[in-house]
């Protein structure tokens, strides 16, 4: 058919709108290979593939050589993607996810997920209850599925990547529902799964996890239902042949259309968001209902229909057709007798091409509306599948642009880009008949993902390149496929992959390596993983590949201590302790970390470790530290003895050994002291012990202890002075001062007296202070200003007085100092 000559040839008018049904592909399969009248067929939206298998519910003659059914997947253009013998059991239903995975549900509740190439990606069970009750029916939405069991219970899986089957509330049905349908949680107000269940009593129940709501309808019973693409409306077919449309909140009813058919449609789907298409058994036409009006489309073949956001795809035994409401832009330009500016522009462009002067006339007539007309032509080009029409419309737009002074070329350029992408994927070899509208909804990124899933890596990569999208995922997928398929040498294939991926940034080598490992090529995986820059991805994979030593090295390189721990603890779990420690041995960073961990978490391992590496001093320190945790002194001493033994092993730690030995001695002594004085001694330091003994008046015992522990003279004197001052034993202090020449001078004596606010006593010791400066200062401090000045006089040093002046604020003293200074100067 020549679209350019007559674009409206396939338009059907319904009330005041136009619909068009046009062929996109003639099917690539052999005639008779696929017969939709005999098959269970499910097609994926957004121009996706179709899965077919023998329909077990219809009785049919088994043709020769086909004892066992096969399951086949075809592209929209009828290219075989995969086919395999179906021997898994009784299939209840199928469905497609948004990333074009085929979901197959068996009667016993087993769910199988396949790629378009028939690879089993995941298999799981819907649970024991499902198995016991047996699955009756299944509904799949873009990311999940719901099954109905023979016990009339619903079970749901919301995330097919991590399936966790959960029951919905019990709808309390006595009879099987007349029909049921699930609504994508994306469109429910609660964002939770809701199932509409039509009952024999004529109402619809909304079943979700928390409960069941009755919509209290009496128009039913409904035998067939369909949800509109945006989830806003529900089309319901009653057993009496009426079609009802409700908003999905059931606040009102939108309209009723009597079809006068007594048979329930075998297929029913929305065509965009404004019309419903039904196929009745034993008829050779599709009935489309829109806003209370209807139209019939004759069929030549049995079909499988699939609703799209902006229309309806009709797959038949021989063709793939697309039915849609004619987009506004297209309608404006091509509708018979249209006087819209865009139509005029399109005309003008045609006249221009024919070198007719009418071109100019037309352009002049729409001068002010020209920008809108250009936009319309660009938009219309997007809605056309035919290359000549696209070209013609773009030419018209470009022609119109010439007459505009300021017009951004962005719109035009964008559309050209989009069309190139769309035309490429619509090519029958690829077979994705995406419309412009669908493409916008789907997003280029997801289109690329779908192409990758179909192993169309080159096209996907070119699209990324062309649209400036990130191509790392495409490349990773390509490489992952490569490692599975290729049987070339590991090194060679690694080199090839790295070469190709070098220039692509953000490539996850870990993912490719993971694929290689899963496919049984651990060596290749390790090689590839070496290129992974992200240690966070690299290390866990290396661990799961049992490359644990390498994992540890890589973790150390990264500096991320948590990764190091991950590798360390894995090594610890999987190795004999000796081997484990040997591995850690030459990696000081890991070793330190392990020790830090052990100190907090595993003291036994810590001791083993120090023993293994022959570090007795560390073992000793651990034991000594542990001793403090013991409650009774005997076990404490036991630990200290152990520490002592370990310290003694190495001469270098003589000091520690001696101190530990002395501490043991001290503890034993303190126990004795506690027994004799009924006072706490244990855990006091040696100095404090001496001090307490002095306070208690046991200076003899203190002296004995002091010699035993070789306490220096100086410190012992300090302790004695302090204790005497504490007990205000002034006589004692005096006695001490006369014992012998003080090894610590006499300032401490003065200080001790001053602490006890006894200036009189202090005066006894000030003269003994050697440094004149200090002596004068102390005199001043106790108020003996005259004596202070005398020091200066004796030393013949006026500076002493100068300094004294800064040490006091007492007016009398200051005056005295001033006059003394005067005298000095006079002299």
């Amino acid at each position, binding site marked *: 058919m020549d679209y350019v000559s007559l674009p409206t040839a396939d338009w059907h008018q319904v009330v005041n709108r136009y619909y068009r049904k046009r062929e996109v592909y003639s099917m690539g399969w052999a005639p008779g290979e696929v017969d939709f009248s005999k098959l269970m067929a499910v097609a994926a939206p957004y121009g996706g593939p179709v899965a077919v298998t023998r329909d077990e519910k219809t009785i049919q003659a088994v043709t020769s050589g086909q004892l066992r059914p096969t399951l086949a997947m075809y592209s929209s253009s009828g290219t075989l993607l995969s086919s395999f013998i179906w021997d898994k059991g009784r299939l209840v239903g199928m469905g497609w996810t948004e990333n074009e995975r085929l979901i197959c549900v068996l009667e016993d509740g087993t769910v199988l997920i396949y790629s378009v190439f028939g690879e089993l990606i995941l298999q799981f069970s819907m649970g024991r209850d499902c198995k016991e009750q047996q699955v009756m029916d299944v509904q799949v939405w873009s990311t999940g599925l719901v099954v109905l069991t023979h016990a009339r219970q619903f079970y749901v899986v919301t995330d097919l990547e991590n399936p966790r089957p959960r029951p919905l509330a019990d709808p309390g049905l006595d009879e099987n529902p007349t029909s049921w349908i699930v609504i994508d949680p994306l469109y429910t107000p609660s964002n939770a799964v809701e199932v509409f269940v039509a009952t024999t009593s004529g109402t619809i129940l909304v079943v979700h996890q928390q409960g069941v709501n009755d919509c209290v309808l009496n128009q039913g019973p409904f035998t067939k239902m369909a949800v509109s693409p945006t989830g806003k409306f529900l089309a319901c077919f009653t057993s009496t042949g009426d079609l009802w449309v409700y908003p999905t909140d059931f606040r009102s009813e939108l309209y009723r259309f009597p079809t006068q058919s007594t048979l329930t449609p075998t297929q029913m789907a929305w065509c965009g968001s404004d019309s419903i298409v039904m196929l009745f058994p034993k008829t050779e036409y599709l009935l489309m209902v829109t806003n209370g009006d209807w139209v019939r489309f004759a069929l030549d073949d049995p079909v499988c229909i699939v609703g799209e956001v902006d229309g309806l795809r009709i797959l038949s035994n021989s063709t793939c057709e697309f039915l849609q409401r004619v987009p506004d832009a297209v309608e404006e330009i091509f509708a018979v007798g249209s006087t819209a500016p865009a139509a005029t522009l399109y005309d003008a462009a045609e006249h221009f091409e024919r070198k007719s002067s009418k071109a100019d006339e037309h352009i002049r007539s729409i001068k002010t509306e020209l920008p809108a007309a250009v936009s319309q032509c660009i938009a219309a080009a997007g809605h056309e599948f035919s290359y000549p029409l696209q070209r013609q419309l773009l030419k018209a737009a470009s022609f119109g642009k010439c007459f505009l002074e300021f017009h951004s070329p962005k719109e035009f350029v964008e559309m050209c880009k989009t069309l190139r992408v769309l035309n490429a994927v619509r090519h029958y070899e690829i077979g994705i008949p995406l419309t412009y509208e669908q493409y916008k909804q789907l997003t280029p990124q997801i289109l690329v993902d779908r192409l990758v899933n179909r192993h169309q890596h080159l096209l996907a990569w070119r699209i990324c390149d062309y649209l400036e999208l990130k191509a790392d995922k495409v490349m990773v997928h390509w490489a992952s496929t490569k490692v599975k398929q290729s049987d070339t040498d590991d090194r060679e294939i690694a080199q090839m992959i790295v070469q190709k991926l070098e220039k692509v*940034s953000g490539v996850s080598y870990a993912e490719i390596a993971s694929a290689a490992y899963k496919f049984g090529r651990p060596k290749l995986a390790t090689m590839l993983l070496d290129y992974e820059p992200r240690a966070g991805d690299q290390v866990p994979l290396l661990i799961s590949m049992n490359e644990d030593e390498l994992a540890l090295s890589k973790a150390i390189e990264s500096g991320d201590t948590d990764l190091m721990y991950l590798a360390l603890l894995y090594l610890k779990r999987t190795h004999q302790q000796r081997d484990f420690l040997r591995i850690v041995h030459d990696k000081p960073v890991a070793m330190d970390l392990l020790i830090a961990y052990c100190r907090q*978490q595993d003291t036994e391992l810590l001791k083993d470790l120090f023993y293994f590496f022959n570090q007795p001093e560390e073992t000793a320190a651990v034991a000594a530290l542990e001793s403090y945790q*013991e409650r009774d002194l005997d076990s404490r001493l036991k630990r200290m003895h152990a520490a002592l033994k370990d310290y003694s092993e190495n001469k270098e730690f003589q*000091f520690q050994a001696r*101190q530990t030995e002395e501490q043991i001695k001290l503890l034993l002594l303190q126990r004795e002291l506690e027994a004799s004085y009924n006072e706490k001694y244990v*855990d006091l330091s*040696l100095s404090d012990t001496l001090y307490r003994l002095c306070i208690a008046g046991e200076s003899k015992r203190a002296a004995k202890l002091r010699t035993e522990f070789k306490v220096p003279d100086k410190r012992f004197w*300090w302790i004695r002075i302090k204790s005497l001052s504490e007990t205000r034993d002034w006589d004692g202090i005096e006695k001490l001062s006369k014992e012998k020449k003080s090894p610590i001078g006499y300032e401490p004596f003065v200080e001790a007296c001053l602490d006890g606010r006894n200036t009189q006593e202090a005066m006894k010791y000030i003269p003994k202070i050697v440094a004149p400066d200090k002596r004068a200062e102390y005199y001043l401090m106790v108020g003996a200003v005259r004596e202070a000045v005398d020091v200066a006089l004796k030393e013949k040093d006026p500076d002493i007085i100068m300094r004294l002046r800064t040490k006091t604020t007492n007016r009398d003293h200051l005056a005295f100092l001033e006059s003394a200074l005067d005298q000095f100067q006079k002299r």
Partner: protein
Amino acid sequence: RERSRQEPISVLDSVRGRKALVLDQGIAGPLGLIAEASLLKEHGVEKMYHLLPGRLDTECKSVVYLCRPKLKYMKYISEHIHTHESEGGRSGVKKDYYLFFVPRRTNICERVLEEEGVFGDITFRYFDLDLIAFDDDVLSLELETSYRECMLDGDKTSLFYAARSIMKLQSLYGLIPNVKGKGTCARLVADMIMRMRRELGPDEEPTMAPEIDTIILIDRDVDMITPVCTQLTYEGLVDEVYGVQNSYIEVDAEVVGALGGKDAPKPVPGKKVKYALNCSDKLYSEIRNLNFTVIGSLLNRKAKEIDEYYKSRHGMSVSALRDFTKKLATTQQEHASLNIHTNISEKIMRITSDPAFHRRIEAEQCLLAGTNPESSVDYIEECINKKDPLVKILRLLILLNATSGGLKAKQLEFFKREIIQTYGYEFIFTLNNMEKLGLIHSQQSKGPTFAALRKALRLVVEDIDENNPNDIAYVYSGYAPLSVRLVQQACRPGGWRQGGMEELMRALPGPSFEETQVMPAGVSYTPVSAESSVDHHPVTLVFYLGGVTFTEIAALRFLSQHGSTDGSPARDFIIATTKLINGDTVIDTLVDKVVPRSESGPAGPAGGALQGK
């Protein structure tokens, strides 16, 4: 600050209903900086608890833990859950537990919780708190024990966080072209940021022109001299005396009594209140970095100014009166702040005028200048005999050790013995730790001595005029912080490779490096030259790994303000660190806390009776 405020709130809002918030103590402080208690209340926090071992008694059904991913905390949490389960099991109330790791979830912690059997009871999240802005120019990760962990334990987790925070800064302010550093940890962090850049890949590179010109990474253990000296700036002394925690100090209520105005109830004596110290206090930002000796007269002058201002209103014209009232609010604020700082500085003055304080400073100065070290040795011994606080002894010992290239073997053993006998055997572990870190060691004669370093870097500057300083040495009244001198040197042309520096750098621990990062395509960077415009100085980020002191901050601020004195281009400095420290806090992390459990013997007064006044 506003940006960081959003995060904790969204953390809280992600848990519905009223909840108990359990914080690890290290986080409570920083969190207080970005979200006040009242704000937390608004977002459903019923009660707040510290994360402590033992039991957690709370009425709330939801318990939100916010803590660092540390093993000990995991143990506390599982202890809590276990007790709740064994007790709540009967009443049938099951609590919901949420655990927010700061700054990220770690495998190791989850493993520990798994081992404790509570993994399934907890909902895990994380809260990416990294650098906290204490001031316009000071950022801290607030990782309290990072010095010990990195340098002693070999647990370099905090370095990884430091590297991550630098990456975050780079994503905001552009790639930093020049990377310099000194020390083992600095090297590791530099390697990590290069590696992380590779991990990100060229697509994620920041594309703005670099706003930070240079980053200088310095290990704390390159310069342990500076923190062990007594800080002599106002802020530094406030820190030494009160201990600044997350820019707050705890003071007696009387000190800030004037805050509430005349009608406020008389503060209860002995009660402690928190007082914030940051740049929003105008007076404080004026005096914080000054040497303490000039504070008294400066505060006096301020007081006079304010007094004159109040007096000036007598006999004023109407228009002048209007101006007067305009200024009144700010003056009153200033007046209140003046009162507080006068009170604080008076208290500090009481300490600094004590002869004991003088002797300590004298000892430090002698050691730094290398004059009469014997007197300092005697002084340290005397301090031990008086049983002065141990950290003071350790600080002095470290200084002695560093300035004299180690201690004589006999001397070292003597001091160790004195310390153990005076303070107790348990400090043998602390001494071991210090020896492992090389903070104390016996003398070995190799490489340039401290004297050489002092001479080459002019570490000791005589004739410092504290009133009108012309060198950073004013912060320690004559000693210029070694770390800041290294920064100064790094900023000169030729950097650390110039002249005899190379030799000297070798005398300090760890490698030194000066590298440049290749700018991503399309990002232009013009190296700084002497002719760079006057009003826009290049920005240098100095990252202290293991902590920074207030005096070092003051010295770097001094350099920012006064420009360079040696002809190299003036620079603005921003300081980042793992933790704000002083000598006490950093050395305290080296003390293995030992709490004797033994209960033998009769209960008497606890030990430490000898402790000095």
